[in-house]
């Protein structure tokens, strides 16, 4: 089926977003008319490109209360996370080889951490509670003499839970440890102030905030303390030597425009999207029993709604909800054939992980779309429960968890 067959409803904004028309407009001149290399110092084409990236740098910096010289442009948040973690680890190795992160981080944080472990570093992975929150005391206790970096995300990509970043930053600074936050899901949505929050490194991506794919940034603090990182890419010495490679000028211009729009519209977007999300959740809860909200209901991103529909499997739900673009934590929908490790880390059983659906709303989501998604979700869950042996057992009063299941 192609996307043109039926009217598709997109509720997967935590995966990616459509580029805002205003962003496309801002980018267009930089593909052909102003196509120069921002590193060309001796002609108008280069000057135009440099001017555009400098202006973008200032916009990005201002949006998080940083200085423009503290912004390093990258290809996206995966690169930013790798650069922050590997870059700090290499540079600060003489000081120590211990890093701290948590079990619900994105793979773009967990995998470089694992690579460091293989290279002789030690990594402490903090646990989370059933809502995806870390314990600040556990963090305090995990910090050692040789700890060089704490990397904890601002908001979770699967469940939307928001970490207490300011409190984490305070603990890190009291202990003289650098603090990196993967803010991919939060940039443009949540207020970010790297000074107040004591953030030393911050990763962000354009395509999660209505900008283009393939561009992101890393904030690297220059004062109190001055953070130094060893590059991951070597080459022409762009980005003050931290990230060599010709700047993606149209992408950078687009990211800045996208961020600017997010800031202008943040309050109204936040309010509207929260209302739509709450409406979706209320409609589902009114018609369906045995729902579990995954994440922290009182402290999550406005756009995010992750629900387990007990007794039905996620992939079969997606099949029934064709026309609604959402994600599932079911193993059958992942490349790894494992259910969501984030839900597992929160203590959600594998059965409920298989039954989870992530709805994520966005700037262009309408009430009509939400109503249609709710309607289709409800009818699909009801239909599938009618053919679920687990639902039948539950109705008979059998505790599914108490049954001893054969190995498969």
């Amino acid at each position, binding site marked *: 089926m192609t996307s043109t067959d039926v009217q598709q409803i997109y509720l997967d904004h935590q995966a990616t977003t459509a580029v805002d028309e205003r962003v496309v407009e801002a980018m267009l001149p930089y593909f052909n008319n102003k196509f120069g290399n921002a590193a060309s110092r001796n002609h108008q084409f280069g000057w135009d490109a440099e001017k555009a990236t400098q202006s973008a740098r200032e916009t990005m910096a201002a949006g998080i209360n940083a200085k423009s010289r503290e912004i390093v442009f990258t290809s996206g948040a995966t690169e930013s996370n790798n650069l922050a973690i590997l870059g700090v680890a290499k540079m600060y190795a003489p000081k120590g080889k211990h890093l701290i992160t948590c079990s619900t981080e994105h793979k773009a944080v967990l995998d470089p951490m694992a690579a460091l472990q293989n290279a002789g570093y030690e990594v402490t992975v903090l646990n989370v509670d059933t809502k995806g929150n870390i314990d600040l005391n556990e963090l305090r206790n995990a910090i050692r003499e040789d700890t060089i970096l704490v990397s904890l995300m601002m908001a979770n990509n699967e469940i939307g839970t928001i970490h207490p970043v300011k409190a984490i930053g305070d603990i890190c600074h009291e202990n003289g440890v650098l603090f990196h936050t993967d803010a991919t899901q939060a940039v443009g949505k949540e207020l970010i102030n790297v000074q107040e929050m004591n953030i030393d490194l911050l990763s962000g991506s354009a395509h999660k905030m209505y900008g283009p794919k393939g561009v992101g940034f890393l904030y690297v603090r220059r004062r109190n303390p001055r953070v130094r990182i060893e590059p991951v890419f070597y080459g022409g010495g762009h980005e003050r030597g931290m990230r060599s490679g010709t700047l993606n000028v149209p992408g950078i211009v687009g990211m800045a425009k996208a961020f600017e729009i997010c800031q202008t519209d943040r309050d109204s977007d936040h309010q509207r999207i929260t209302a739509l999300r709450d409406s979706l959740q209320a409609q589902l809860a009114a018609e369906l029993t045995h729902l579990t909200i995954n994440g922290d209901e009182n402290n999550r991103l406005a756009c995010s709604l992750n629900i387990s529909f007990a007794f039905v*499997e996620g992939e079969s739900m997606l099949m029934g909800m064709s026309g609604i673009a959402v994600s599932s934590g079911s193993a059958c929908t992942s490349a790894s*054939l494992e259910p969501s490790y984030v839900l597992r880390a929160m203590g959600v059983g594998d059965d409920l992980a298989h039954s989870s659906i992530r709805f994520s709303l966005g700037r262009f989501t309408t009430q009509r779309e939400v109503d249609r998604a709710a309607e289709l979700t409800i009818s699909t869950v009801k239909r599938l429960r009618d*053919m679920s*042996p687990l639902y039948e057992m539950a109705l008979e009063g059998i505790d599914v968890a108490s049954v001893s*299941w*054969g190995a498969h």
Partner: protein
Amino acid sequence: MAYSDKVIDHYENPRNVGSLDKESSNVGTGVVGAPECGDVMKLQVQIEEGVITDAKFKTFGCGSAIASSSLATEWLKGKTVEEATAIRNVDIVEELALPPVKIHCSVLAEDAIKQAISDYESKQGND
């Protein structure tokens, strides 16, 4: 993932969804899989004079698991016990054009058939 038309048809119009009286002496029940693994199949057969006169299923699982069990019940009806035990998972894979990652769904269906028949046979006291 792209599904074959047959999987989609069984998913959208599942045959023989439901339950038979599991206490009845001529009904055999097979329940295979586990919720943690993302699929549980319950398959039941009603057998009269060595012939399967009815078959029902309920499945928790992906579209391919639902389709495999739906197809199994369709095939079972009218078959003798001997013919039923001869059904192999590869027959289901072929009929539904299941991709390699979904072969385990067909294995579950074969197991469910075997378990249902064995349950019936033990009720009859000839196991």
